[in-house]
């Protein structure tokens, strides 16, 4: 069910292309034969259970893991060569609970990549930092210590840091896991804004609703179960293969229903 037609022009400096890509750790393949293409203003959702290869693919895209086989081009280069154009939000932030950092300090880190070791923070940087906090509704918390915030508030702070990067490619690992309904809605809205700005977004998620909002979805279960537009590939059969239970996507207003449980799995 892999769709090859969506693969954009090669060597384009504004897209992400994977071709027959094997990903994994230390030479051990976790997901073979990954193919997808993403251009300006598009988003791709990676859907699958824990251990299905979502994070492995994200880390390969941002250059933290070398590809095992095949080709991947990120913004016209091999992964990891465009730090200024890339924003990455990883899954675990347990360090945040001891670090003596204020909300503003964390968001400000989003500007470090552009500034390097010595670049001074300008007025423009300050404006970007403030605007990023405002978009997440956390500007009132700017001087609050990170460790005093709830999980959901912290996730908003990390998201504000990502926005402050003003990146061409935004890679997010389960960015909505601690968000409540309003945070989740705000997140969708921000993703739309970023796409309209021309940014590409790759997001790993358990949330089928979020996946359906993306231009493309990829179902992962240590193999690519399906990749393509959400309304085409989020079928009960594909979701059964991905999650081991039958989930039914019932359209934008009805969301997802669990229809039947597959025996032996989960």
């Amino acid at each position: 069910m892999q769709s090859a037609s969506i693969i954009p022009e090669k060597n384009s400096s504004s897209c992400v292309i994977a071709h027959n890509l094997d990903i994994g750790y230390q030479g051990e393949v976790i997901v073979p034969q990954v193919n997808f293409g993403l251009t300006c203003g598009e988003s791709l959702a990676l859907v699958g259970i824990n251990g299905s290869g979502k994070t492995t693919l994200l880390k390969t895209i941002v250059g933290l893991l070398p590809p095992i086989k095949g080709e991947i081009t990120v913004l016209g280069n091999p992964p990891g060569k465009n730090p200024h154009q890339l924003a990455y939000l990883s899954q675990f932030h347990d360090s945040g609970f001891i670090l003596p950092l204020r909300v503003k300090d964390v968001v400000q880190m989003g500007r470090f990549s552009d500034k390097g070791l010595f670049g001074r923070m300008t007025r423009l940087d300050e404006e970007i930092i403030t605007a990023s906090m405002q978009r997440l509704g956390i500007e009132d918390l700017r001087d609050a210590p990170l460790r005093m915030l709830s999980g959901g508030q912290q996730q908003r702070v990390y998201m504000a840091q990502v926005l402050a990067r003003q990146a061409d490619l935004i890679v997010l690992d389960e960015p909505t896991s601690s968000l409540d309904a309003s945070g989740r809605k705000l997140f969708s809205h921000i993703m739309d804004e970023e796409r309209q700005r021309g940014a590409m977004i790759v997001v790993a998620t358990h949330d089928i609703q979020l996946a359906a909002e993306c231009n493309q979805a990829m179902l992962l279960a240590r193999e690519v179960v399906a990749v393509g537009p959400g309304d085409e590939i989020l079928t009960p059969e594909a979701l059964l293969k991905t999650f081991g239970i039958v989930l039914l996507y019932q359209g934008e207003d009805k969301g997802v229903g669990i229809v039947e449980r597959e025996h032996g799995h989960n």
Partner: protein
Amino acid sequence: MLNALLAGVLVSLACGIIGTFIVLRGLAFIGDALAHGVLPGIALALLLGFPGILGATIGALVMIGGISLITRRTRLSSDTAIGLLFVGMLALGVVIVSRSNSFSGDLVRVLFGEILGIAPSALLIQLAATLVILVTVIVCARPFIMLCFSPEQAQVAGFSASLYHNIMLALVALTVITSFQTVGTLLVFGMLLAPAGAGALIARRVQSMMLWAAGFGSLSVYFGLLVSYHFNLAAGASIVLVATLIFFLVFFLRGRPLSTFGSPPKIG
């Protein structure tokens, strides 16, 4: 006595700055290992008539090199590599010392320092090291803070995580090597952890944590020397005892539960 105070304050500054990163990044074990791993180097250098600081440097290099060799070539965790070399180097140090009857006094000096009899040249070395640490941390402030936040995030932002991690380790080693003459290898570790740990309990920013740590360290040196003078106690040990006492004072005066060390709240 003035020299001792000066040297102690310089050690406190160095330990406050680099100890902050040890606490924030959870590098305590490797700091401990370095503090003890330099022992055979110092012992051998003293036995052969070389300056102890040269031996300490070689000891630290062997330690860091060995740890990175084991973790790169095997799948053993760095904890195992650090622990193994830590014990091995300590044993080697004791074996070297036990071969010679003449310098068990030297051993005590190495382990517990000789802050009261510190030479002006050692004071200068301490000053230079403290300046190097201060300047390096100012230059590397952004990648260092990102490393504390998330090494992966630092790497993706274009700051080589391994490069800045190694620079950080080198600064820890430099602190241990130069401080052994004042508070001693056994106790420099206390000066790295206790003041920074107390600072972590109250500081809201990394910069203020360093200032608190340097301040607590300097207070420990002052009161430690005072106590040791009046009650005729070992100076280095008195300083570290005061530093530990300050940590617990801060801990109890803080008066509320340690949310910082608790598990993350999982609410929206």
